[in-house]
């Protein structure tokens, strides 16, 4: 992070929150908490940080020190922006505000982005009020207004913040990049208030989705390779790639509304070539070919469907009520498909071992 500690506190070189202790070294002056300085320039290190974050690497290591930051040359009248302490979130805000003089109040969201943290309550009323107090914001600025990202609203109650801190809140746009436009009129257009889920946003989530499940996938593929050959191993890898990468990409284009049925459809299409290869193996009798094809047609759609259902948490629009309904409707079906498909595979395996085929 391109941040440095302000001179008001020479001791806060560590990453551990010096502000909570109101800067232990300047004993006797707890009223002058450290104000850090930041810029709008993103360094190469910042970009590498964003990349590793997107790949789920060192998940705990993408944090900004919470507290008040000075961007540019802010005066007492300059606007105050609330932000999360995930590096990516903070970097979005500071880079969007290039050329502006502003204060950025970073909440301790445990390295989680604004929306997720708001959902959890860490980007919330209590933390905001606490940070206002710790930063002694009342004496830093002359106005009583904080611009909060719109997606922080699930965790923040503006009447509560006003009552507890005297600061009134203004909900800014969803995306930090709209901040310059927003600041011209202090009004967000309907488009600025809408959350979409375009291809780029979906694509950027796929590495983490895939990395999550890569290890079990490799193990299963290795086992299948030994038991059933390379095509079966390829089927396992294809199913996981379809569920974690292809599904997010194709999300709006696959028919039906439910994630589970979308996954079933995608999985069925993927299963067809594998079923064909398994079902036309001349080395095996017809009944075994049939069982092998059935196994592919049952297991692959079940796996893709399950992975698809698990993508609900990454989207920007699924309701808890709806997802719960999906779980009760489809998980049993997926389980039954996977079990019957596996049984078919086991029958073939046992028959081979027993020398029947």
């Amino acid at each position, binding site marked *: 992070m391109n941040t440095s500690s302000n001179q008001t506190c020479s001791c806060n070189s560590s990453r551990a929150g010096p502000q909570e202790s109101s800067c232990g070294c300047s004993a006797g002056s707890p009223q002058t908490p450290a104000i850090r300085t930041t810029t709008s320039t993103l360094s190469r290190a910042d970009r590498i940080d*964003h990349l590793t974050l*997107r790949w789920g690497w060192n*998940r705990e290591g*993408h944090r900004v020190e919470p507290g008040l930051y000075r961007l540019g040359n802010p005066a007492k009248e300059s606007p105050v922006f609330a932000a999360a302490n*995930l590096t*990516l*979130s903070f970097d*979005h805000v500071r880079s969007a505000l290039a050329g502006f003089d502003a204060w950025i109040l970073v909440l301790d969201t*445990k*390295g*989680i*982005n604004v*929306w*997720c*943290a*708001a*959902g*959890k*309550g*860490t980007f919330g009323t209590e933390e905001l009020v606490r940070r206002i107090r710790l930063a002694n914001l009342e004496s830093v600025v002359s106005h009583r207004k904080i611009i909060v990202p*719109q*997606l922080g*609203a*699930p*965790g*923040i*109650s*503006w*009447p509560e913040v006003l009552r507890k801190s005297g600061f009134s809140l203004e909900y800014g746009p*969803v*995306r930090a990049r709209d901040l310059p436009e927003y600041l011209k009129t202090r009004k967000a257009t*309907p488009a600025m*208030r*809408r*959350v979409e*889920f375009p291809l780029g946003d979906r694509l950027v*989530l796929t590495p*983490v989705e895939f990395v999550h499940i890569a290890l079990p996938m490799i193990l299963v593929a290795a086992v299948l390779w030994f038991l059933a050959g390379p095509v079966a191993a390829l089927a396992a890898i294809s199913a996981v790639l379809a569920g974690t990468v292809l599904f997010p990409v194709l999300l709006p284009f696959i028919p*039906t*509304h*439910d994630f589970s*049925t979308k996954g079933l459809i995608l999985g069925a299409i993927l299963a067809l070539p594998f079923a064909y290869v398994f079902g036309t193996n001349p080395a095996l009798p017809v009944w075994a070919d049939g069982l092998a094809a059935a196994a592919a047609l049952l297991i692959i759609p079940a796996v893709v469907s399950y992975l698809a259902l*698990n993508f*609900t*948490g*990454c*989207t*920007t*629009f*699924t*309701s*808890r*009520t*709806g*997802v*719960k*309904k999906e*779980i009760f*409707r489809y*998980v049993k079906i997926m389980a039954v498909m996977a079990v019957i498909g596996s049984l078919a595979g086991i029958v073939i395996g046992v028959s081979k071992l027993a020398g029947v085929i």
Partner: protein
Amino acid sequence: MFDSYTETSLQYFPERCINCRRCLQVCPHAVFAEGAEHAELANPRACMECGACALNCPVQAIAVQSGVGCAWAMIQAALRGKDMDTECSCGGDDDSCCGQPAETGCDCGEK
């Protein structure tokens, strides 16, 4: 058919509304629309139950059971024998589905 998202827990009591329009500002899916005397419930099906409107309504004209629409978290909770409705591991715990960077996504984000 194949649409589990037709109903949500969102409730709106227009008679209480003072038309402050905060709900219009905080809703990411334009569920509410401007009205002459009070906000209109324009698209309730788009509600994702994030809870922002209810929390920011100064007169409690909106109620919603807010929660995360995250199958992963709910299934994990169910597997551990915990309550699917209250249990959410989202956001930073080891087994979180949304320690993810999702800038917009991960409505684990939500709750």
